């Protein structure tokens, strides 16, 4: 304790004459949460840098790419170069790019000729609605199936649930979407084919609108959930199976507690933590499912935006959508890690 308050010893590389109070003030930087957040920020910085250099490394002048369809006069072309800052040296463009990213200014869409941010905002909301709905389904069904399989480990129920989970994981998400449309929308005519709202719908009450959106939400959310539910169930099953061998489970059984009490109070409770962390790791996979689903159902989110950007070769839009998806995933995994480290102190020290 006393030694750590002495100047210089705490911060290995810091100047020797740092006052003790300052050393203490900056010590939080070494704490787990600070390191974890920093790691997330570095990841985003790398993604932004990647985006910038990808744009520059393309063959040909970026301004040509922007102006590819409209025939511009040399003067207008020069003006375009100027407005995109293409006449400045590369490193200066890079710095400008980074400062703009921090202010969420991600440039102008080639196709729509409007700020990318204006396109991203509504898309982000729609993607979060879809992913959120899917997550609820995955959570409820995945944990339920996992608990059943883990508790009846080695039985026929367990084997068939494991096989089902592996099969679900093997399904291409976009194909599941196509099959659901074929069955529920085309053959049975129960649910809408695509979009987020009915075309030219007039809502009398906000309740009507919500019902319409919910009807459009069912199939896309189910599509994402069907593919992901298996892996969550498997994760829950395996951690429950691991917990089952612990001494406290044996002790609980020896004390003659009811099986249900043992399962919920000792089993699920302890198995839930590792499941939660691993679930955060599957978030990237979840985004992959969302992109495919949005394309199949024309759900106006970030995935559809990316798809359209690919078709239109709209690079600023494509990169910005990628960046926003990366931000979502980084924030979510960081929060999950911090949450987990609060609950399990062993993580913080490693």
């Amino acid at each position, binding site marked *: 304790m006393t030694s750590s308050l002495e100047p210089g010893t705490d911060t290995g590389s810091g100047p020797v004459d740092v006052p003790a109070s300052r050393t203490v003030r900056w010590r939080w930087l070494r704490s787990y949460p600070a390191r974890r957040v920093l*790691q997330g920020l570095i990841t985003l910085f790398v993604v932004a840098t990647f985006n910038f250099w990808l744009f520059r490394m393309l063959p040909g002048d970026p301004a040509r790419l922007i102006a590819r369809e409209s025939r511009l006069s040399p003067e207008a072309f020069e003006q375009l170069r100027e407005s995109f800052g293409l006449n400045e040296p590369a490193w200066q463009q890079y710095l400008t790019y980074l400062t703009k990213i921090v202010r969420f200014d991600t440039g102008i869409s080639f196709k729509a000729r409007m700020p990318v941010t204006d396109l991203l905002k509504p898309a982000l909301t729609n993607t979060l609605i879809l992913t959120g709905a899917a997550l609820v389904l995955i959570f409820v069904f995945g944990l339920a199936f996992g608990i059943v399989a883990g508790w009846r480990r080695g039985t026929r129920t367990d084997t068939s649930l494991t096989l089902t989970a592996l099969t679900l994981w093997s399904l291409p998400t*976009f194909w599941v979407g196509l099959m659901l449309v*074929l069955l529920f929308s*085309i053959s049975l005519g129960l649910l809408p084919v695509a979009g987020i709202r009915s075309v030219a719908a007039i809502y009398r009450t906000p309740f009507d609108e919500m019902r319409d959106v919910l009807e459009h939400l069912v199939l896309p959310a189910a599509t994402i959930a069907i593919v992901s539910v298996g892996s969550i169930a498997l994760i829950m099953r395996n951690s429950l199976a691991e917990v089952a061998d612990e001494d406290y489970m044996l002790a609980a059984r020896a004390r003659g507690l009811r099986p249900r009490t043992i399962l919920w109070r000792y089993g699920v409770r302890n198995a839930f933590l590792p499941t939660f962390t691993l679930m955060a790791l599957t978030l990237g996979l979840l985004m992959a499912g969302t992109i495919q689903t949005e394309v199949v159902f024309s759900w106006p989110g970030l995935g559809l935006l990316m798809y359209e950007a690919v078709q239109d070769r709209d690079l600023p839009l494509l990169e910005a959508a990628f960046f926003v998806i990366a931000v979502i995933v980084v924030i979510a995994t960081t929060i999950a890690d911090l949450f987990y480290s609060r609950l399990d102190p062993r993580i913080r020290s490693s």
Partner: protein
Amino acid sequence: MSAEGIMTDAAPTAQDRPGNQAPAVMGQLWRTGRGKIGLILLAVFLVYGVAGYLAYENPPAAGETVEDRFRAPSVDYLLGTDNLGRSVWEQLAVGAGISLAVGVAATAIAVLMGSIVGITSGYIGGRFDQFAMGITDMFITIPALPLIIVLAAVLSRGLPTIIVVIGVTSWAVPARLIRAEVLSQRERTFILRAKAIGMRPLHIMWTHVLPNVAGIVLANAILLTAAAILTEAVLAFLGLGDPSLISWGKMLQNAFSSGATSLGYWWVLIPPGLLITLLVLSFTLVGNALTDVIDPRRRAE
């Protein structure tokens, strides 16, 4: 050469010589229900892929008249035709080879990169290890599919691009896995002895560390192949595949973009997806069963 003689003395246990365990592992794998189904399915797909490659051109010829479009399955066309009057049956057969080739080639790239990073990082340790694993974790965090889409959209369209892009975005998980294995092997007696008698690090890694991590790497590689096949299908479906070749994902893209879903033309929609699922499932089953067989903690059960 004399080093080898000392080594056999130093490592008499079966655990240190997994090369001799291969037949035993295969036997155990076959005895798990999953492993057996998966291996049989894989063999069927391998034959199907080779036969399809030899029997038909890729892409199959288009229909001659407008009436050939979207023909329902009949005796002439077992599985009907697509929007250009091409036989669905022939397209399925040529697509198997593409899926297998992309899956295996992309995985080879990923495992090679992962092995290099994982082995050097785990073996050297210290600051280098911290740095390498920091980068690896970053790649694990960055959502893969969006990154793959951006890369595939910018680079020239073609099968090699697809393979490389999937390969170079999938190395992080095997790298982590291999590093963990290397760390657990590093302090084992026979490695320390090899070091003590002055074997070069590269030689130790090649002859002693690599064989010991081979099992877990193989299991992971099989699962990676499953994921790579899925990713290829997704890219083709999004229109980022090789424009000159037919693959299962491309078939679904053609069906989707020509409105086959709304028209209820199930024969262009169901078969390609079903085959993707079965092929991916066969790799998943084998990989999953192999992981259980190799992992000693679960083997004890």
